[in-house]
Structure formats: structure tokens, C-alpha cells
């Protein structure tokens, strides 16, 4: 046990030492602490916050959904192979050492908890959001602690579910049903409120503030306790929280942690074999990344053991466009819908549903917006989400293996064709989004076409600039990101300004959007032209990360 304690403490010490070796990390740490202190005094410094503070039930719902994602992940991981609590170094050295296996298990649990806790610090990053709901620093601090509890439970729950099911289908179904049953009272309550209340917001508020919400295991306890403590400690005059209930909910979280830990430690299962498989899988991913074998990491079916029926075979194209045809062949083997996965389709349906729902809801325009202005709002919103969605596109992945560098074709053509699947995907989505929402919002045909063009051109420009930035090496990734977005906005601005001016002069939104699109296409080509140097004047990115 002494040896395990030594490794555990030493690893943490070394991590802290390494972390503070980089001056930027130290600055980041001081910034986070400063942010927390600032939040503590923010309501006093800025009294307008008290006037503008939003109702806390909205935050409760957000926290519920956010931690729900982790809980769902814990179930999914538990059904597969449990969490990988061990590194390859543990497997090679600790497993083979003369140490009691239960002690090894406790060591693994402590390690996984430490890793999970690091994630919680990110909650502080969201301090401003909490402040908007009336939280002060103490409330935020308690929420971070509560989120830590959820993370620990999720870590342990993966192992518990794995030990309960061992990958057997019937047991998985049973555990899944029990997991789903936890939500039944809340669902019944929600159905009741939404069918009896006319106002959507009132129904939502009544559902979230009900005990059925607070007592949903783990995520309900967490969000409920956070709201109770956050509001009880709030300095805003109109806020109050039920501290007694908060303590009960925290107690439930602690009990859940103890129950999971006791179950894992007392289980008689031989976890070594499973831990080895999980550890090796994790190690294989790290190795693939270091060796530049990224195709295995990003392909969703690369590690699937399920045999795949090959309906069509062959790769088309000639020269640089062979990259496009190869990517299409791969995409249709990875997903029935090719370039679109299940989550993509869900997102498209939600966005279209949202756009159409709001468009059809208004009689003389949508809220304060006209149909055409609403199209602009949708265009801006979708373009913003696109920034997140295309960050690890197939074109970027192409840069990580040697083929694209070795093929004797014009580098500009190569990087454009390598990114073509992203552009095709965006164009098809643009037709769906703006075609359907445009009809619902009664927008003019030229504006619908302009929005489709602008959305696609925006992606073209964004991907092109990403390629151009691959040529720049800065000391810090954070600095790189900051510079990227500054350049991104600055380079886009002339087109945007010209579009707005022309739109106002001609009194036509469509004309303005066409101008912006034209500029984005030009800016995209310029970016790609600069970015082509990445294929003959830079280090292959995997080499950089390996060093």
C-alpha cells in the first residue's frame, strides 16, 4: 500500500510542478482564482446585476442537463467496458507487483477521481453565467464542489454498471430500465404541467421547482442543492434558498459515492483482465495519435468488431480530387447517411424545428423581427455554431498522415479537395436550413439563395483560414486561438461592412448578403492559397505533437 501511496502522491506533485513550469499556466491559475474572488464581490461592485438577475430555475435546468450528459456517458461507458482507471504503466508495474488487488483497485479509484476533479475547475470559467442568476463566489464554490461529487459518482458508476452487467445484453437492458425509471416521476410531472398550463414558461418553471426534479438521483440532487445553497447565500434581496433541503441533497450525493465505492471494493470480480483491456485500448489511442495514425482515432467504426458488409467498392477521381472520392467512400461506410451522423441529423432537425416553429408562431413578423430579418438571425446563429462543428473536419485530419504530402499534385488543389466533403456537407445543410425555414418565414427566393451561398462561403473561408493558420507556430495554443479569431474577424470585416452599406443603400437584405458571400469566397481562396504552404513548408503536425 505504501508503494501505491507513494506513486499517487508523487504523480500529483509532479503534475503540479509541471503545470506551474509554464508561465502561461500560472497566469491562468491566478486568473481563475481572481475570477472566483471577483464573482464573490461582483453583486456589490455592480448593483445592476441584482436588477437584471435571471430566475434560478433556468440555471437549475441547465445544470441538470449538463451533468445529465456526464451521467449518460457513465452509463454508456459502463455498458461497454467500464472506465479505464489505469494507465499502461500501472498495468505493467503495479499489476505485476506484490500488492493486494483490493489496494490496487482503491488506488485506481483515487486516480480516476483526481482526474475527474480537474474537470470541475472548468465550472469556475462559467462564473459570469452563475453571477447572472444571482450566485456569489460562495455559491459558485459550493457548485464546483457539488459538480465534483457528480464527477466522482460518474467515475464510480461506470465501474458499478460494468460489474453489474459484464456486457450481457439482458443485464444491460435491466440496468437501462432502472436508470430510465429514475426519471418517470419527473416525466409524469412535466406532462401534467405542460398539459394543464397554457404558458410554456410557467409550466417549465413549475416542473423544475418541484421535488420530482430535485430528487432525480445524482443530477437532480446536484442541481437542487446548488440552487438551494446558491440562493441562500445570494446577496440579492429577492433570493432565498432552502438550506435544509440542500443538506439533504448533499447527503444523498455523499451516500451515493460511498455506496458505489463499497460496491466496487466488495465485488469479487477479477478486474485485472478488464482493466488491462481498457488500459490497452486507451494506450492504443494515445499511441495512434503520437504515430500519426489518426484515422483510427477519428473514424467512429475503426475499433468496432462488428463485421461490415461492403455493398459498393472502389475509389473514384483522378489527381487531387481522389481525396474527395476516398473520403466519401469512407463516410458512407462509417454512417448510413454518409457525411451525416446521428447527432448531425438530430441537430439539423432541432434547428429546422426551432426556425419553423418560431416562423409560424408569429402573425405579422417574428417577435420584433420581420421574416427576412429572422433569416439573418438564423444565418448568424448557424454560422456561429459552424465554427465549433467543423473544427476537426476531414481536411484537417488529412494533414496528419503522409499521403497528402507525398501525392504529386498542386498543393492548393490538394487542400481544397481534401476539404471538399466539409463544403458539400455545409452546402446540403444550408439548402435544408434556409430552404425550409425561408419558406416558413416567407422570405424572398433571392434571400434564401443568398443565405445558402453565404453560409457555405462562411465555412469555405473558415476552413481556408484554419489551413493558413496551420503555417503559424506560436508558443501557446491559447494565444494562437486568440490571434486566429482576431484575424478571422478582421479579414471578414471589409465584406461585412460593404454588405451592410450596400444592403442599406439598395434597401435589399439579399443584395447585402450576396456581397458578404462574394467577399467570403474571395477571402476563402486567399486563405487557402496561403494555407497551401502547409503541405511543403511546415512540419507534419503529428511530428510536432510527438516531439
Amino acid at each position, binding site marked *: 500500500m505504501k508503494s501505491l501511496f507513494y506513486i499517487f502522491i508523487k504523480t500529483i506533485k509532479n503534475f503540479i510542478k509541471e503545470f506551474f513550469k509554464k508561465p502561461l499556466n500560472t497566469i491562468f491559475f491566478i486568473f481563475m482564482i481572481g475570477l472566483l474572488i471577483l464573482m464573490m464581490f461582483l453583486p456589490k461592485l455592480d448593483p445592476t446585476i441584482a436588477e437584471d438577475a435571471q430566475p434560478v430555475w433556468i440555471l437549475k435546468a441547465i445544470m441538470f442537463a449538463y451533468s445529465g450528459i456526464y451521467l449518460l456517458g457513465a452509463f454508456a461507458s459502463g455498458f461497454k467496458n467500464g472506465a479505464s482507471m489505469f494507465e499502461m504503466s500501472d498495468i505493467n508495474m503495479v499489476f505485476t507487483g506484490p500488492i493486494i488487488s483490493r489496494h490496487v483497485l482503491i488506488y485506481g479509484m483515487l486516480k480516476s477521481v483526481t482526474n475527474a476533479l480537474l474537470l470541475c475547475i472548468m465550472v469556475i470559467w462559467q462564473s459570469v453565467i452563475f453571477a447572472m442568476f444571482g450566485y456569489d463566489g460562495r455559491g459558485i464554490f459550493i457548485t464546483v464542489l457539488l459538480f465534483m461529487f457528480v464527477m466522482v459518482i460518474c467515475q464510480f458508476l461506470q465501474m458499478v454498471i460494468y460489474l453489474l452487467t459484464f456486457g450481457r445484453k439482458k443485464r444491460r437492458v435491466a440496468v437501462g430500465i432502472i436508470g430510465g425509471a429514475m426519471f418517470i416521476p419527473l416525466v409524469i410531472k412535466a406532462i401534467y404541467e405542460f398539459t394543464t398550463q397554457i404558458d410554456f414558461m410557467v409550466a417549465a418553471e413549475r416542473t423544475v421547482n418541484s421535488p420530482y426534479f430535485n430528487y432525480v438521483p445524482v443530477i437532480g440532487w446536484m442541481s437542487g442543492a446548488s440552487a438551494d445553497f446558491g440562493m441562500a447565500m445570494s446577496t440579492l434581496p429577492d433570493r432565498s434558498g432552502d438550506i435544509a433541503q440542500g443538506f439533504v441533497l448533499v447527503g444523498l450525493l455523499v451516500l451515493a459515492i460511498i455506496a458505489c465505492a463499497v460496491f466496487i471494493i466488495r465485488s469479487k470480480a477479477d478486474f485485472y483482465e478488464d482493466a488491462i483491456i481498457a488500459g490497452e485500448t486507451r494506450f492504443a489511442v494515445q499511441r495512434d495519435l503520437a504515430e500519426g495514425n489518426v484515422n483510427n482515432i477519428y473514424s467512429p467504426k475503426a475499433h468496432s468488431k462488428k463485421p461490415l458488409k461492403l455493398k459498393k*467498392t472502389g475509389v473514384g477521381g483522378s*489527381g487531387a480530387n481522389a481525396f474527395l472520392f476516398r473520403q466519401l467512400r469512407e463516410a458512407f461506410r462509417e454512417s448510413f447517411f454518409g457525411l451525416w451522423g446521428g447527432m448531425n441529423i438530430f441537430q439539423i432537425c432541432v434547428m429546422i424545428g426551432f426556425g419553423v416553429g418560431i416562423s409560424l408562431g408569429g402573425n405579422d413578423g417574428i417577435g420584433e423581427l420581420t421574416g427576412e430579418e429572422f433569416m439573418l438571425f438564423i444565418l448568424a446563429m448557424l454560422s456561429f455554431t459552424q465554427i465549433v462543428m467543423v473544427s476537426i473536419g476531414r481536411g484537417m485530419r488529412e494533414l496528419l498522415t503522409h499521403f497528402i504530402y507525398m501525392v504529386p499534385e498542386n498543393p492548393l488543389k490538394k487542400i481544397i479537395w481534401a476539404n471538399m466533403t466539409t463544403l458539400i456537407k455545409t452546402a446540403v445543410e444550408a439548402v435544408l436550413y434556409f430552404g425550409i425555414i425561408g419558406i416558413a418565414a416567407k422570405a424572398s427566393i433571392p434571400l434564401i439563395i443568398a443565405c445558402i451561398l453565404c453560409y457555405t462561403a462562411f465555412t469555405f473561408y473558415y476552413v481556408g483560414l484554419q489551413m493558413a493558420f496551420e503555417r503559424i507556430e506560436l508558443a501557446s495554443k491559447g494565444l494562437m486561438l486568440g490571434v486566429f479569431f482576431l484575424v478571422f474577424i478582421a479579414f471578414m470585416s471589409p465584406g461585412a461592412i460593404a454588405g451592410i452599406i450596400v444592403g442599406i443603400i439598395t434597401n435589399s437584405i439579399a443584395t447585402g448578403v450576396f456581397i458578404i458571400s462574394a467577399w467570403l469566397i474571395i477571402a476563402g481562396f486567399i486563405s487557402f492559397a496561403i494555407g497551401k504552404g502547409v503541405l511543403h513548408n511546415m512540419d507534419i503536425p503529428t511530428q510536432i505533437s510527438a516531439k
Partner: protein
Amino acid sequence: MINVKNVTKRYNKLVANDNVSLEVNPGETAIILGPNGAGKSTIIKSICGLLKFFGDITIGGYPNKTLEAKRILGYIPEFPALYPMLTVYEHLEFIAKAYRLENWETRAEELLTRFELDDKKNKLGKELSKGMQQKVSVCCALLPEPKAVIFDEPLVGLDPHAIRELKKLMVDLAQSGTALLISTHMIDSVEQTWDVCYIMDKGVVKQCVRRTEMGDKKLEDIYFEITEATADTDGVDSKHQMTEEKSITKKTEAEKSENKADE
């Protein structure tokens, strides 16, 4: 065919290749020998155009990053990076299409048969073992019939049959006039095939040995003489290295300004 002149490659403060020069003629098999971390893979990747560097590299007389050079260069990386959702045959088809090869099918079949992959044509990349993936990687590199082929640790992960076939193939390639450059740290694996050997250590070519000039000496003996001597003088070297690094920094800065002037 492959000409490397005064190549220096740095990763921040680390000098991975320090003023490396080497040459491989048509029909010649050159090997780069060296311990782990000697800078073998770095010089290989620089030759293939995957890294930026200071110095000159030409393939068949063309700068290595030109299309002409890429057309006649084949590269087999240390770690095969295949596409998991493409079949073995589709990998070759992709290379054929990307390189605009004509009548490539017969050669593809020959390569697949030679490496015993003909019955695995429809297997996906993800279904192959590492050794099989390495074989596909070799087939992909050789399909465009390159005049210069670079192998980075080619025998790692291969089964005995594949090793034998690859060695035979290397001999055949050299006989047909192809220039071969092989990086390895396994001396036995290349004992029979090499013509010229560059022994590298700490990013520097310590010695160039030609088989014809070897006499009774074994390559292994020369290798250990050089690398162990370097290890013995490590303490002394480290002092020199500091001064060398400073001079390299100055040199690379001078090269940078020269390059700018060329542009």
C-alpha cells in the same frame, strides 16, 4: 538520385539533425544506422518533405518538395497509417487515382501476390494486423514505380515470410536501378543488402562506410566502435555541444537570411 546537403533540423532547442549530408545513387542501397534518438527518422521525414529544414535536398536532381521529385519518390513510414474504412485494394486504387497512374491493375495484383495479400484484397484497413498494414503500406509506396524509395524501420512488425520477401524486393529494386534509403537500428536485418552505410548518433552523421572499403571488418564492429566511443565521451561532448549549438543557431540564422535573399 537522393542528395542531402548540409541539412539541419531543430525542434526549438533540440538539434535533431545537425548538418547532415548523404547521397544515394541509382541502383544503390544506402542504410542509416543509429541508436534510438539518433535523428534517423527526422532526416527521412525531411527527405520526404514532411518536415521543414535548413539545407538542400534533391531527388533525381529536383528539390524534394517539387512535384517532379514527388513523382519519383516512394516512402514507407515506420508506422503504417492506413484508412480503417478502406479495403486493401481500395488503398492501392486511391494511390493509383491520386498519382494518375495508368494500367496500374496488373502491378497492383503482382504486389498483392508477392506480399500474400491477394486473398485479403477486400479486407478493411481496420481488420488488418500491424504486419499486414505494413505490407499494404509497402504496396502503396511501390505502386507508382518510384525511382527512389525510402524505408523507415521497414521490418518492424513483419512476419518472417514478409521479412524475406521485403529483403528480396529490396534487392530486386536495387537491381532495377532504384535508389534505396533504409533507416534502421537492426544491423542484422540489412547486413546482406547494403552498399553504403551512414552511421548517425545525436543528430550527426558520424561516419560513412562503403561495403567495398570494409575489408575484413564487420559493420556491427564499426557501428559499436563509433556509438560506444560517443557514449564514453559524453561528458566531454556536452560542453562542446553547448558551443556547437550556439554556432548552429548562428548558422541557421545565417541560412534563414540566405533563404530569404533567395526568395
